[in-house]
């Protein structure tokens, strides 16, 4: 009886090591899934902090699937366009399939028109070459207007 207990303990030691690793991996994997849900576009530049991640907030839209106040975090390069593969889909007849691009370089957000038919406008001026977006800039594609927000916590634009 005693010998059996000892045997169980001896292999229990190895067994517990296995259990530990299984639980560890299980929780780490579910952590990864959670992270993915929290930050859908993942990847960010090394030097910037999450608190000042830029975002585009819809302030004017005639489309059903884009409503006032909808917020898009820009934590990696994004494409705006009518194509359903775009990061932000704009189902507007005045929007091109691949309309404009917002990208992050050294902590600054740039907007570039990528050959749209009807143009991209920042503060109602047409974008000819890549421009740096500043907090509060209004970005218009077709009939949809976004506001670029850099310090989301301090701006009381949307409720």
């Amino acid at each position, binding site marked *: 009886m005693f010998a059996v207990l000892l045997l169980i303990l001896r292999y229990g*030691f190895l067994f517990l090591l296995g259990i530990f690793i299984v639980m560890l991996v299980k929780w780490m994997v579910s952590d990864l899934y959670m992270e993915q849900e929290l930050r859908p576009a993942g990847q960010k530049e090394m030097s910037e902090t999450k608190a000042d991640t830029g*975002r585009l907030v819809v302030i004017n839209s005639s489309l059903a699937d884009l409503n006032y106040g909808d917020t898009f975090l820009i934590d990696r390069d994004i494409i705006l366009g009518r194509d359903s593969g775009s*990061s932000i889909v704009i189902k507007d007849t005045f929007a091109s399939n691949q309309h404009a691009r917002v990208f992050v370089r050294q902590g600054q957000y740039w907007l570039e028109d990528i050959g749209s038919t009807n143009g991209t406008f920042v503060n109602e001026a047409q974008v000819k070459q890549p421009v740096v977006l500043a907090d509060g800039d209004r970005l218009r594609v077709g009939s949809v207007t976004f506001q670029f927000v850099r310090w989301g916590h301090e701006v009381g634009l949307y409720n």
Partner: protein
Amino acid sequence: MSGVYYAAPHSNIRGSAGSRAVEKKLLFLAALYLLAGIMSLYLDESGALVIIAVVAGLSVAVAFLLIHIYWKASGFRGDHYLLPVTAVLISTGLVFLFRLDPYYGIRQFIWILLGLGTLVFTSRVLVNFRFLGDYKYIYALLGLIALILPIFFGKVQGGAKSWLDFGFFQLQPSEFVKILLVLFLASYLAENRAVLSAGTRSLGWVSLPDPRECAPMVVMWGISLLLLVFQRDLGAALIYFGTFLAMVYAATARIFYILFGLGFFMAGASVSYFLFDHVRDRVLIWLNPWPYIDNIGYQITQSLFAIGSGGILGAGFGQGYPGYIPLVHSDFIFSAICEELGLLGGAGIIILFMILIFRGIKIALHARDEFSALTAIGLTSLLGLQTFVIIAGVTRLLPLTGVTLPYISYGGSSLLANFILLGLLLNISHEANDSL
């Protein structure tokens, strides 16, 4: 464009960090593991030693849980998985040391408590670790002094003259110098990254940085290698150099430096092969240890016998004969683990180290600036390389070089240094999680 990005509307981006529930559960499992190990060792015995072992096991388990409680109470947001993984590695080491030689077990127990104290201290005092980046030339100087001292006042142990003798305990400065090296390189590379990765003058098809920019780096590296040759501490030299290359590559993303460095390393290795007897011996017993089984090859062949006799499930804890391997309590503890816990146990330990490295790289990716990212990369490669070098050494994948298996082998300097390393990694992840 490259791929489809999905940017869904968000209302909140706050993470759920803060509660350390996973850490607690894993630490309970680790405590169970440690106690099962101690129990199976001493269940059929009695006497003072049993009481000491049980007390040691219980105290270590409780100490880990206390650290968890303290961190939870003080709102520390460091990585949740590092502490439990370390706890299991530490427990494995402690249990095996008690099984191999209780003398080392008891001493290791005291070192573990001191090490945990160091960990709490690091996570408390160095939580704003960024100021560490301001003193890089002081580190270079301190590191040099610490490496030079053993050459004059050192004591030879296991072929390496890298120990300082303080009477009742000995210190191995190179264990601590490796952390100073990482801090120096991280701070230096963060400052000069742009220059190093762009290069200012071209040599044929590669552009080289100005000699002035890389001079301090080359000097630091050359001197440390020279010293290690004088101290005959091959393992440490290998680890230093690998960490150096990993950090330079992480900072500049230029494969040229790696090739250049490997070339240098090959040259150095062949030179030392012809110059030093002990290097030649190591290569000899690596290529074929069997003719030397009675003398220089004894240790490695005993290690191979032990690993081989373990099989898949092992001989059972406490049932093997690892005592035949010289130095089994420090460099060769992995062979003892393989003998008694088998392939499964050995693989388990390797998986745990891989998880530590995975978390370390993750911390580096999430770090907030270059200094902390490079520090995290450096510390992680230090840990990974040291583990690789010794496990590869005892299994005869690489020539044997005497370094400790982090967190498992007996050794106070190594334990304390690795706990400081762990604390720094946790601090970097604490800062990254704080901004979430």
